């Protein structure tokens, strides 16, 4: 079990309120991702749930029990830190055993759980090494192992992959997803990388300045961003947002069109522009188009290749029904 509910939670550091009153429910077994630009309060929120920070007001409930004043270790949560936070002078075995040792678990039981965790995480060969002798990915797995053996009601991940290189990151992302589907335990994952958020989450919580901008499934957020911020934040490359006369044509203060929902032609189309940089990824091509009169740069994405080069004139046409409209307050108009 691991249903986590935040009721009217606030957090202030001195006079600065980093989290205004906030309500959030994370269902049992859910994979929730907190995503937002740096400084948006997502890590603070996670630390509040973990108990590493005290709430300024409001209540935190885990499985309907009020844990607001309960000490971190008694909340039954396990956390994986960005820097892994392994104990450098202990072997991998001792690192993984540490929470059990603190809880007074019997030696035999400890051995059993260590062996199981090591097997699940491919660490069996490294149990007697020290963290300093391991690669980044292995350290990350040790940190996860230390979390698993506690058999927590929820896992908290604080940007766990940001210290890994790109290839490893994709691998670990999959491993964490698989772990989640195998264990069916609640997981809360903090990241600033919206790709991680989109690929892993059951539920994404988009935060900005401590305020929840939108909560929903990845595709919800992609297809129906509630406001301009979410529209610009979710999706890669970013959505093109225009305001001014072009938006007025659609009875909106701001309109948005995703790069992948724009047709490109060298002969005719709605908007005309000059090709700037073209990024060829093989499977896709991103073209940055200038001088459209809409925004500084319009990014478009086309599948496969296209024969345009720097300085060419191209025409862009938005796909029907893919234009997102927002009112003067930045809220979505349906």
């Amino acid at each position: 079990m691991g249903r986590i509910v935040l009721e009217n939670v606030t957090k202030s550091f001195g006079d600065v309120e980093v989290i205004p009153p906030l309500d959030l429910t994370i269902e049992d077994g859910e994979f929730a991702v907190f995503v937002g630009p740096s400084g948006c309060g997502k890590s603070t929120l996670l630390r509040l749930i973990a108990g590493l920070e005290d709430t300024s007001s409001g209540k935190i409930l885990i499985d309907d029990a009020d844990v607001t004043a309960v000490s971190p270790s008694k909340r039954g949560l396990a956390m994986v830190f960005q820097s892994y936070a392994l104990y450098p002078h202990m072997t991998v075995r001792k690192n993984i055993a540490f929470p059990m040792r603190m809880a007074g678990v019997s030696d035999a039981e400890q051995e059993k759980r260590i062996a199981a965790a090591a097997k699940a995480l491919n660490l069996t060969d490294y149990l007697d090494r020290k963290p300093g002798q391991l690669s980044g990915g292995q350290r990350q797995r040790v940190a996860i192992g230390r979390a698993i053996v506690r058999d927590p009601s929820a896992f908290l991940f604080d940007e766990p992959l940001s210290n890994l290189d790109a290839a490893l990151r994709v691998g670990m992302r999959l491993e964490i997803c698989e772990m989640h589907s195998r264990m069916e335990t609640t997981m809360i994952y903090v990241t600033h990388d919206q790709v991680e958020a989109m690929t892993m989450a059951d539920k994404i919580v988009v935060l900005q300045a401590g305020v929840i901008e939108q909560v929903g499934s990845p595709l919800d957020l992609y297809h129906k961003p509630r406001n301009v911020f979410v529209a610009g934040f979710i999706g890669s490359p970013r959505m093109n947002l225009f305001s001014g006369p072009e938006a007025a044509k659609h009875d909106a203060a701001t309109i948005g069109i995703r790069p992948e929902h724009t047709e490109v032609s060298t002969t005719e189309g709605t908007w005309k522009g000059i090709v700037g940089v073209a990024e060829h990824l093989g499977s896709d091509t991103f073209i940055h188009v200038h001088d459209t009169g809409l925004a500084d740069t319009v990014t478009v994405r086309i599948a496969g290749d296209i024969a345009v080069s720097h300085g060419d004139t191209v025409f862009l046409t938005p796909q029907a029904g893919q234009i997102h409209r927002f009112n003067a307050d930045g809220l979505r108009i349906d």
Partner: protein
Amino acid sequence: MSDRTLPRLLQTPAVVLLLIWMLVPLSMTLYFSFIRYVLNNLRRPEWTTPSLSNWRGFGNYEFVLKSKDFLFAIQNSLFIVCSILILTVILGVLIAVLVNRTFPGRGIVRVLLISPFFVMPAVNGVLWINMLLDPVLGLQGLAVNGLNDLAASLRDAPLIGWFFSLWPEFEPISFRATQTSAYAVIMMVTWQWTPFAVLIFMTSLQSEDQQQKEAAVLDGASTWAQFRFLTVPHLGRPIAIVVMIQAIFHLSLYAEIEIVSRGNGNKNLPYLIGEFANNNIGAASATGIFAVILANIVAIFLLRMIGKTLME
């Protein structure tokens, strides 16, 4: 000229200087330790100038080994050094952990904590033995007298009087006495060198990973467990450094011993050398060679024990 000649040539002055620096005193000490050489002798005036014709062989060494203070000086050297090491490391770790927290006035407290280290050893000795440890006029004497007076005045009090009438009259301890002068030296040197340990441990504590601590909190570690399993191992290396440096320094303690009791009941090897050097330079030199040997033995032990921590 091969490519190594020039660098070696450039290094030569430094190397030669170091060699002279070390070798000249050492070889002179060795030389004096094998001849009869005294500063003043009316019967044998020829002994007052160092010369090979006064060759004595291992005579000086025999003389030192047989002198009643030699074994005692070695034991006492080790006793003083080990006591100071243990006390400064324990006190240093505790104070460093305490001061590492944030509290109002932390800057001032830190400066005050470091200040004993800047007191000269001789001043330190005079200060402690006269102002603090003196059995009559020092803080110790006053405190003991005060306690006795207090107990005496409470003896006639109702209800609790019987309890105080069971108290003995306390005697102030004279730290200049034969049996206790080593303790006085240990106290004053510990007071002076604890700041050094605190300073080194404090800088090390500031580099301690806070996320590790948070992880430990989540893992259910109590404050004591965090100290025992995270902080103490983290301090392993600085403890090794403090032990090493202090062992080297305290083997050559002199000023405090001189001031406390003029070596009465409390000698170490350097003090013994000083006593011999009042007249018998040959014996002093032989003791000096013993001191070099002792220092080397201690160094080997220290490197064995501590080198591993440093290399990791």
